[in-house]
């Protein structure tokens, strides 16, 4: 296989991967989340390096299956998905577009940390994704998926999900 066709394949692969939504937050793709760490095409074999977000996230197996299904259909090649934990996935890898999509969907994007003292990690001000107010409060550190916490806006009174800094 010559270099040009590897290049072409890679472009197609990125385009295809961008169509795969996170199974639990379908508004963002696995590319938006920064989960794809590398792609190699070697003699008819495609290797996709995937960074798991949380170790026990049940969506991971679904994502693996979808990557294989989508790429094998598009390229007619064997596809292997390798899990990469080093360096560990971080919310810093979420693309600007991904952050924007989260907010549009009603999930407050990661806001950073205000301070860390010993075991206490204080999250920075989280803005309400509905009305934009900064007067919000934490309801629960754990939300409907491992990556989210539950907040409430004290202005518009709506509860909302917050994508935790990780």
């Amino acid at each position, binding site marked *: 296989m010559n270099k040009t066709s590897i290049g072409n394949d890679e472009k197609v692969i990125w385009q295809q991967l961008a169509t795969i939504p996170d199974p639990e937050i379908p508004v963002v793709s696995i590319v938006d989340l920064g989960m794809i760490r590398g792609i190699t095409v070697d003699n008819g074999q495609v290797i996709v390096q995937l960074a*798991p977000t*949380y*170790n*026990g*996230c*049940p969506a991971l197996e679904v994502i693996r299956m979808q990557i294989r299904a989508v790429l094998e259909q598009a390229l007619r090649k064997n596809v292997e998905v390798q899990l990469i*934990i*080093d*360096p*560990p996935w971080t919310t810093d890898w979420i693309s600007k577009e991904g952050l924007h999509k989260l907010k549009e969907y009603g999930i407050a994007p990661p806001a950073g940390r205000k301070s860390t003292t*010993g*075991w*206490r*990690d204080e999250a920075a001000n989280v803005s309400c994704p509905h009305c934009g107010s900064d007067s919000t409060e934490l*309801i*629960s*550190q*754990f*939300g*409907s998926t*491992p990556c989210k916490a*539950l907040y409430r806006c004290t202005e518009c009174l709506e509860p909302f999900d917050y994508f*935790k800094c*990780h």
Partner: protein
Amino acid sequence: MDEQWQPLDHFLLMRGDDCLILGHRLSEWCGHGPILEQDMALTNISLDLIGQARLYYQLAGERLGRSEDQLAYLRNERNYLNAWLVEQPNGDFAHTIVRQFFFDWYENALLEALERSKNDRLAAIAAKSLKEARYHRQYSCEWVIRLGDGTEESHRRMQAALDRLTPYVGELYQNHAFHASLIDDQVIPDIAGLWSPIEQQMVEVIRESTLTFPVMPSLPARGREGIHTEHLGFVLTELQYMQRAYPGSTW
């Protein structure tokens, strides 16, 4: 304990078993949490821990020529190396929180040290898991304070849980003779040395919670040698039932 295990295999299984058994215990709360948010919190922590257990089992499995599932589902009680603390029953919410509090402090200190392991794979597992462990510790510390410094009833239950579970803490901070070469080679830290910096911080949280840290001798626990309290057998009976009843079954 299996004679074939090298010191690193033993350490990896010990780590995996702590995470798996505590993860399983927390999963027992699913549908039984005191309120919906806490039901979700406990099962979220459970998922993280089971995910972490898989990383240790995968690495141990590569070395031993066994799959992660074989290691989890087909080992007998005497070949499980978890500490006694994590196999203790959930009890009430106070017991679950105190057990988690003790485990989280140990887990954070150990993972922080393992991040610097000379074994790159182990260091990567630690770095990946530490982010989750920090979050768990914040959760358990906040609940210790909230319930300890809460109502008369919550204070009484928390103190009862502290009194009941404190004797299990000592086992976590014991070095195992079998691990001497790993400590020498800086693959794992001197685990006994993790205790004193942590003790001070735990005492601080307990003080803030208005509870009393009981002065009690440690139990002569031997979980790391595969000798367990009566509770582990019941956990494994449930956890391993499907593979024992239908060997080799898959999803």
